[in-house]
């Protein structure tokens, strides 16, 4: 199987994950979206040196993952291409911020090192929370929730159709790649001389397909509003879910839980 086909399958597998059955899956998308946004905002609000305070925030994704029956390793596996980018973000901090904050033995820990780790943690935590939202909520439901938050219709439709378009494009890449490789057996990939025409053909083909899909939507009365995904009953404890987790996140934000736990033993 070529890489494009694999990517396309992974994308479709996200749809499957989103329709599994678990308490988290059954909560209303708006509650989940709001909780995730709230979590990311709180994570981002931590000071760049506040590693200890931030560490506790891992609790939210870990609890949600365990309830949702989706493993954390699935998240890291699916996000393997994005995670290095997140980690790269803070990589240069140690070179700019060289103030020594504390020592571990004889090793001087600088502000840059701490802020690098904090930045990485913020990125990873946010990605984990976003992933569990996407993995437990179909894209249509997320879009529907965004509309309830008054995100402009055009933007929501754009997100939704882009998501679907990526799948179509990957399928087309897979077909074209296979067709190319069948006639170029000694090549490791697409030769640079064919890149231009390959890309041009890809755009034309995927646009053709996307047009056909859009026509099919139009023929069934699509007018740019999405609110259809409803086949599963929504859990009546959705608001409670949002309230409890937002409270937990707030507690973690304003109380230094590790210090409090530590004080119990000293």
């Amino acid at each position, binding site marked *: 199987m070529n890489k494009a086909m694999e990517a396309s399958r992974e994308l*479709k597998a996200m*749809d*499957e994950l*989103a*329709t599994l059955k678990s308490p988290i899956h059954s909560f209303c998308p708006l509650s989940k979206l709001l909780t995730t946004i709230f979590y990311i905002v709180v994570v981002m609000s931590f000071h760049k040196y506040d590693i200890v305070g931030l560490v506790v925030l891992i609790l939210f994704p870990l609890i949600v993952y365990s309830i949702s029956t989706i493993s954390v390793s699935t998240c890291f596996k699916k996000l393997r291409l994005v995670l290095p980018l997140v980690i790269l973000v803070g990589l240069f901090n140690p070179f700019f911020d060289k103030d020594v904050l504390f020592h571990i033995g004889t090793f001087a820990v600088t502000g840059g090192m701490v802020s690098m780790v904090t930045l990485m943690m913020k990125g990873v935590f946010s990605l984990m929370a976003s992933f569990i939202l996407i993995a437990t909520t*179909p894209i*249509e439901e997320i879009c529907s929730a965004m509309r309830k938050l008054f995100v402009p219709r055009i933007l929501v439709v754009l997100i939704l159709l882009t998501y*679907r378009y990526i799948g179509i494009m990957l399928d087309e890449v897979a077909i074209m790649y296979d067709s190319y490789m069948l006639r170029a057996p000694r090549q490791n990939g697409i030769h640079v001389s064919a890149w231009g025409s390959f890309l041009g053909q890809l755009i034309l083909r995927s646009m053709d*397909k996307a047009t*056909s*899909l859009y*026509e*099919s*939507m*139009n*023929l*069934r*009365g*699509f*007018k740019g509003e999405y*609110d*259809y*995904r*409803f*086949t599963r009953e929504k859990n009546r404890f959705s608001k409670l879910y949002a309230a409890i987790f937002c409270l937990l996140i707030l507690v973690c934000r304003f109380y230094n839980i590790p210090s409090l736990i530590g004080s119990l033993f000293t």
Partner: protein
Amino acid sequence: MIELQNVSYSYSDDKKSLNSVSFKINRGERVGLIGANGAGKSTLLKSLVGLITTEGSIKVDDITLSNKTLSEVRKKIGYVIQDSDNQMFMPTVIDDMVFGPINYGMSKPDALEKATKMLETLGISHLKDRYNHKISAGEKKMASIATILTMEPDVLMMDEPSAALDPHNRRVLINMLNKIPLTKIIASHDLDFILDTCDRVLLIRDGQIVADGKVDDILTDKILLEANSLELPFCLQGRN
């Protein structure tokens, strides 16, 4: 039911894809639209649901097709496009089936009930919660027809419905279509399929209707068919 008068269309070049096409289809008729590749079959179907803007007049139940009446006409004519992958864009079959009815104002529970009943009627209830990308081409074709029928159209219009189907699924589709009491327009160059599902045939060549008559008359006319890059249905060829 459907009336076309002098309908013409060209895809930006000089050659007309539809050239002054006129015909009437009455309620309950089962019409096969046949012709060689590029004859204009798909263009004609697209014109009937306003996917392309043509010259001339198209009326469906006395409603003249225009931008204002587009939604009304599309509610009346259910169009099953050739590639089921493009028709089925939601994650699961049931999601796809309720897409149309809800857009046309049906309540969510009603749409779900209607979709479930339609699946039962067509004998494909097992597909209800299946993922679209995991069902076979034959199942996808059945499901795509179900998505259109859930909208309760007056006319079922299909473009090459038997393409990519194996003989068994093709037969299942024929039996299913013959049980649906709707006006049907089926574009295909699978003439055996047309023979099994239609009463009347429109033969199109270079965007013009060159023959219009009973299926038994046109599909047995070897000279007419061969002059239009077609041939007798296999079942009438008497091959050993």
